[in-house]
């Protein structure tokens, strides 16, 4: 750790991982309800469990992005964070907002659009916190060295904040509502978040592979270009069946098919840089996440997205368990693994020690990743059966759901494996380290 203020990232990572654990707990509760529908039915209905599961994911990913940015920015800008105090302040505001939202959901206080359920005051707090974050990191950037990594990262974060403002616009016309709702949801995860993803991957590769920065930065522009060229009009794949014009069917089909390309490019980019690299970085676990992230993102976001993105297929598969399958692996691969990778990379420096608990961390990687893949497979089979019975044969929804019990039971099994994997990983990251391994001053390669 070259810069003292990088240590603010530790608090962000700690909070993010705490919320990650909570997200997984709500996830497994939802999976139990699918198998035993009477579970908690009187205490916590499914909609409350589900909103907690999805909101926790969004909140911890954002806090994770912030932590990654605070960790990376001093090294890239070659100067200390503008104000560590502001960093802790905005983290505090964000945590208060997140906890308040969770409590409000239990009490039935919320807005009612999917993923944007946060009560109004929570949305305001999130906005305030994010603006403080952007101010703090942008000031650091402005006064320091500008690299492609930190410029693309900040562009992604600023654009995320801009598109977030559409969360405050809720028109009375449901179709209009949906059009702009996607300006937050799609333009985040299939648009500007990919800028964040690519720049963080680029950073990890520069640090761990030893490949020349110029080469990595050039390809970074190519990848983020492909992301936005395809992803902006790729929004069209959400505009097929919500009252929007029919021209979105060809536009959405073509451009969202092209969305696979940047994800594939990220796989090639990561592996080529890894092979070209001369540096043999000691943090093998972080390297594993860095290679795993684009790979699983390619399958989860790319392949599983393409599977149901063509309009004439989506006509039948839209809003079935196929979507749930895709959603789970896409978020896990693209964003969860990314942040886990940065945390795995940063943690030894933050704790001033050599890489530690490497094997345990890699066990966490393999258990989490294979469990998420298997969960995706079970939901994909459920979705295929559901699509056929309900959308082709026209069977009643609840009768069809009764046919899917086996898949939901297997999904619950994979959920248990996710909990085990997450627990191992959290211990590997934050658990006590045996004495004798602490030797912060010798770690200069990082």
């Amino acid at each position, binding site marked *: 750790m070259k810069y003292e203020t990088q240590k603010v990232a530790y608090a962000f990572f700690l909070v993010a991982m705490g919320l990650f654990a909570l997200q997984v707990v709500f996830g497994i509760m939802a999976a139990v309800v699918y198998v035993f529908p*009477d579970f908690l039915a009187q205490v916590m209905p499914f909609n409350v469990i589900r909103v907690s599961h999805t909101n926790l994911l969004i909140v911890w990913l954002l806090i994770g992005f912030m932590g990654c940015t605070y960790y990376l920015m001093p090294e890239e800008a070659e100067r200390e964070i503008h104000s560590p105090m502001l960093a802790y302040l905005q983290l505090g505001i964000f945590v208060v907002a997140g906890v308040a939202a969770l409590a409000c959901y239990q009490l039935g206080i919320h807005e009612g659009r999917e993923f944007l359920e946060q009560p109004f005051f929570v949305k305001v707090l999130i906005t305030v916190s994010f603006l403080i974050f952007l101010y703090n990191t942008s000031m650091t950037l402005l006064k320091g060295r500008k690299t492609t990594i930190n410029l693309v990262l900040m562009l992604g974060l600023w654009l995320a904040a801009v598109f977030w403002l559409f969360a405050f616009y809720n028109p009375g016309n449901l179709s209009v509502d949906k059009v702009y709702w996607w300006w937050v949801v799609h333009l985040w995860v299939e648009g500007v978040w990919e800028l964040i993803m690519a720049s963080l991957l680029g950073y990890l590769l520069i640090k761990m592979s030893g490949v020349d920065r110029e080469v990595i930065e050039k390809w970074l522009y190519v990848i983020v270009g492909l992301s936005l060229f395809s992803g902006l009009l790729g929004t069209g794949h959400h505009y097929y069946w919500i009252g*929007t014009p029919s021209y979105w069917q060809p536009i959405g089909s073509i451009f969202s098919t092209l969305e696979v390309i940047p994800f594939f490019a990220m796989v090639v980019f990561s592996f080529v840089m890894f092979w070209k690299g001369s540096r043999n970085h000691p943090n093998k676990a972080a390297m594993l996440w860095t290679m795993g992230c684009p790979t699983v993102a390619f399958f989860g976001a790319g392949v599983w997205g393409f599977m149901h993105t063509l309009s004439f297929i989506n006509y039948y598969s839209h809003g079935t368990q196929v979507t749930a399958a895709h959603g789970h692996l896409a978020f896990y691969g693209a964003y969860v693994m990314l942040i886990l990778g940065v945390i795995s990379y940063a943690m030894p420096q933050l704790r001033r020690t050599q890489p530690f608990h490497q094997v345990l961390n890699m066990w966490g990687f393999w258990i989490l990743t294979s469990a998420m893949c298997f969960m995706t497979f079970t939901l994909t089979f459920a979705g295929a059966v559901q699509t056929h019975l309900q959308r082709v044969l026209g069977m009643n929804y*609840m009768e069809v759901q009764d046919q899917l019990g086996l898949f939901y039971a297997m999904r619950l099994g994979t959920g248990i494996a996710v909990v085990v994997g997450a627990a191992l990983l959290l211990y590997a990251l934050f658990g006590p380290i045996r004495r004798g391994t602490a030797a912060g001053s010798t770690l200069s390669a990082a």
Partner: protein
Amino acid sequence: MAEGLTKSAARNIFYGGSLFFFLIFVALTAHSHWYIVKESTSALPLTDSVRAGKHVWEKNMCINCHSIMGEGAYFAPELSNVWTRYKGRDNPEAARAGLAAWMRAQPLAIPGRRKMPHFDLSDEEMTSLIDFLQWTDAIDDQNWPPHESG
């Protein structure tokens, strides 16, 4: 190919191309907005009651079990065409009575069946919610879903 491309060229292509596609996207969104208001949702008027019904829908977070036009939680039936499923297009009064009775009867005391909570809706809220569902059913959404089953 890689040799010919410089970093500054890649950067310019990124910024220029992104702006180009963003402007197209904005233009198409503006047209779609106009199309929705003028064409696809104009079959039934967007009354105050429909708006209030959308609020009832949101206040009770229906979206985190049900889906509407395919978006939501997939845990409970699709509702954009529930009006059609209840034969509201043929017999609106019976559909209204049926939908209200169904919601008031929740949760059903059937062990092992997914439980819809009991939402204590006033008569006015119930009317608005059903107005909203009827209005949504009338949206021209390219004939989705494929079957009445939703």
